């Protein structure tokens, strides 16, 4: 338990036990987040489209992801006769592995990360770029034309957008070097710290340079994760289901898991690089203890609000005996949320003094994770919003945007950022 008081991430501190615990927590957390995202996507998309979405399994379909997961687990796992068995079998695992490995360096807080590598961002980009291997292998191993075309599209798309993405990332890293010592960093935690020191999120740095780089990254990350409007690899109207046409059951669900995990991962990169990572809004300007306390109430307020919505929903259910169980379920769910809110409130109040007490440490950690997750959640919502709004790009247009628009702009932003950085220094 020597680690417990330290301000380092377990990987850096060399504490393997806590690293393992963190890994488990993050793995479970991401899996739950994927399920929540699944539900949220279906619900939000439905409401965009004048529908209700899942309503039957659990109150307001809350248990739908569980039902889906169960169904997928129990489904027959079909491997096409002419498929390359081994590659077909291993492809989803590679995708999953790549998208989950990335989380080792995602900084949910200054010490709330599995590890802090000094090449953190490089590691993230590198490993997430391995995810495409899973798609390519799946497409090829299926031995079918639609998956093959999906895989070809996907690989070309990812390789193209990685370039613009990387250049945008570099321009953010360049900004980290604008300190006294003049040394930048690739470490995810240090990047956030640099923003803290410079007192500005990089999205607002050298306005509009940071914003442009951020926008480029935000576009490229949608392309990287094969989401609408860049979901050509799985364009259902053209390629039925693209690279996973031949997949079913558990293996298919692994692809979905990998896709959503990758979405969360790239959003984490964006949050870390441009949106101040775990930092709450205005940590420098509004640093008085009163402000600190006010902001630390946000987690409790959020869950309280969710609980309130849950109770409202339960109250608004039709008073028919059919809805008895649903109403009760929703009420229990809301009550759980309320309890969580209460717990968070207690922690926030108990840890309001910035001493080194356990409560204060807890409160801090919760704040960090809360703000980080909130920022990531905004991106998740954007992903859904994009999907509901836009048609799909065509392949050549996608390439055109990647190479002829995004690449020059990101290169230009990089150069201008460098020049401005030198001048400012």
């Amino acid at each position, binding site marked *: 338990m020597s680690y417990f008081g330290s301000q380092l991430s377990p990987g850096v501190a060399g504490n393997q036990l806590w690293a393992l615990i963190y890994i488990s927590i993050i793995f479970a957390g991401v899996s739950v987040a994927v399920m929540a995202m699944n539900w949220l996507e279906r619900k939000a*998309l439905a409401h*965009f*489209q*004048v*529908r209700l979405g899942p309503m039957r399994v659990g109150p307001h379909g809350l248990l739908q992801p569980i039902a889906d997961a169960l169904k997928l687990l129990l489904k027959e796992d079909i491997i096409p006769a002419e498929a390359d068995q081994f590659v077909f079998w291993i492809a989803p695992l590679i995708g999953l592995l790549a998208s989950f490995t990335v989380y080792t360096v995602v900084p949910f807080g200054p010490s709330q990360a599995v590890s802090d590598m000094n090449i953190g961002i490089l590691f993230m980009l590198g490993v997430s770029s391995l995810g495409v291997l899973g798609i390519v292998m799946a497409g090829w191993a299926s031995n079918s*034309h*639609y998956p*093959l*075309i999906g895989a*070809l*599209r996907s690989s070309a798309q990812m390789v193209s957008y990685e370039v613009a993405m990387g250049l945008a990332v570099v321009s953010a890293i360049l900004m980290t070097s604008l300190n006294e010592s003049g040394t930048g960093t690739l470490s995810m935690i240090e990047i956030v710290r640099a923003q803290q020191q410079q007192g500005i999120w990089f999205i607002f740095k050298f306005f509009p340079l940071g914003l442009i780089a951020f926008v480029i990254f935000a576009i490229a990350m949608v392309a990287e994760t094969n989401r*609408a*409007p860049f*979901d*050509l690899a799985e*364009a*259902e*109207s*053209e*390629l*039925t289901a693209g690279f996973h046409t031949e997949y079913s059951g558990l293996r298919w669900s692994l692809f979905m898991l990998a896709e959503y995990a990758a979405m969360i991962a790239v959003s984490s990169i964006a949050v870390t690089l441009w949106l101040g990572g775990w930092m709450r809004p205005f940590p420098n300007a509004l640093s008085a203890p009163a402000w600190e306390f006010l902001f630390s109430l946000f987690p409790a307020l959020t869950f309280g609000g969710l609980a309130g919505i849950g109770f409202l929903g339960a109250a608004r259910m039709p008073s028919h005996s059919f809805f008895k169980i649903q109403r009760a379920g929703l009420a229990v769910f809301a009550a759980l949320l309320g309890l969580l809110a209460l717990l968070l409130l207690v922690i926030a109040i108990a840890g309001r003094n910035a001493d080194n007490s356990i409560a204060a440490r807890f409160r801090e950690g919760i704040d960090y994770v809360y703000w980080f997750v909130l920022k990531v959640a905004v991106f998740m919502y954007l992903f859904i919003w994009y*999907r*509901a*709004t*836009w*048609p*799909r*790009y*065509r*392949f*050549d*247009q996608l390439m055109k945007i990647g190479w002829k628009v995004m690449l020059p702009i990101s290169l230009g932003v990089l150069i201008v950022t460098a020049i401005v950085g030198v001048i400012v220094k």
Partner: protein
Amino acid sequence: MSVPTKPEPANALTNEVSNLDLATSEKPYLDSNELVINMGPQHPATHGVLRVILKLDGEKVLGTECVIGYLHRGVEKIAENRTYTMFNPYVDRMDYVAAVSNGLGYCEAVEKLLNVEAPPRAKYIRVILTELNRIASHQLWLGTHALDIGAMTPLFYTFRDREEILKIFEKYCGARLTTHAFRIGGCQYETYAGFEKEVENYLAFLPPKIDEYEALLTGNRIWLERTKNVGVISAADAIALGVTGPVLRASGVKWDLRKAQPYAAYSDFDFEIPTGKNGDTFDRYMVRMVEMRQSLRIIEQAVGRIPEGPIMAKVPKVIKPAVGEIYHSIEAPKGELGYFIVSDGSTQPYRVRVRPPSFVNLQALDIMVRGMLVADVVAVIGTLDIVLGEVDR
């Protein structure tokens, strides 16, 4: 009416179409050029059971071949074994999203053969229902077309609004899709109480919804990129290929049977024929969007002055047209829908030939997608607005 230029001799269009070498028997070593993929008959974007064999170079389409007939029910053969009246409901099953138009065409053709004319009140009701059906058909087209191009949301909006039309149909004749709304000689049903009110409500209801569709699509950059200069067909090619309806009009030919050879009561109404310039997918989209608004205009004029009077002409109980043959066509939502009926003087038609617009329009797919990408094939199939029930009959 603008007269298009005389079409080129059509050899270039057709000769290559069919000799598609699908059996790529001798592949050179490290051959990476041609990929033959089979799109359909079960495919999300082929609007039913169309099967398109695509020959691709990477993603570029080198040639297509349509394989149709999966939904062939022998409608024309059935017609020869049914009386004129009995065959009437069958026509609804061809273009089932525009069943009212099919019925109108058939009833008018038989009426013409019988040399009777529906009373004016019936004609007005026919116009209102047909135009409502045209809007419903275009809405369904818009939703599925947008879905093909990847925009999910318009589908649900258009279905929501189409529902209101189907409700009117249901109240009028009890059916929503295959309505069998008209009878030979007029209409069977008088309008229900409140019919005019509901239609007028719909007239006020729809324009903001069309604005909504347009807000989602018309100015959308991705939509523009996906539709502009995609699936271009020139006026000359369109005429040579017998393409009709919005597809022809989008190529710049201002030709609409409702104006050119007015039937029912269309000569009473004031409306415009929208045309496009480039004959690309975007023009076809715009033409149909404007057509919806023009249909509303027609309905608005018609519903205000439905004449009083009978709804059924005096037609014999047993329909036995004299020996002879007749061709009658109407402007269905998809194009020229024609019926060629041969009578031998008996109670059953000797031959009924349906000239289906979807069938003929689908022929244009090949020249529209050559040299384009796979994604455009999907867009073009959508923009042709085919209904396989009508293609295969």
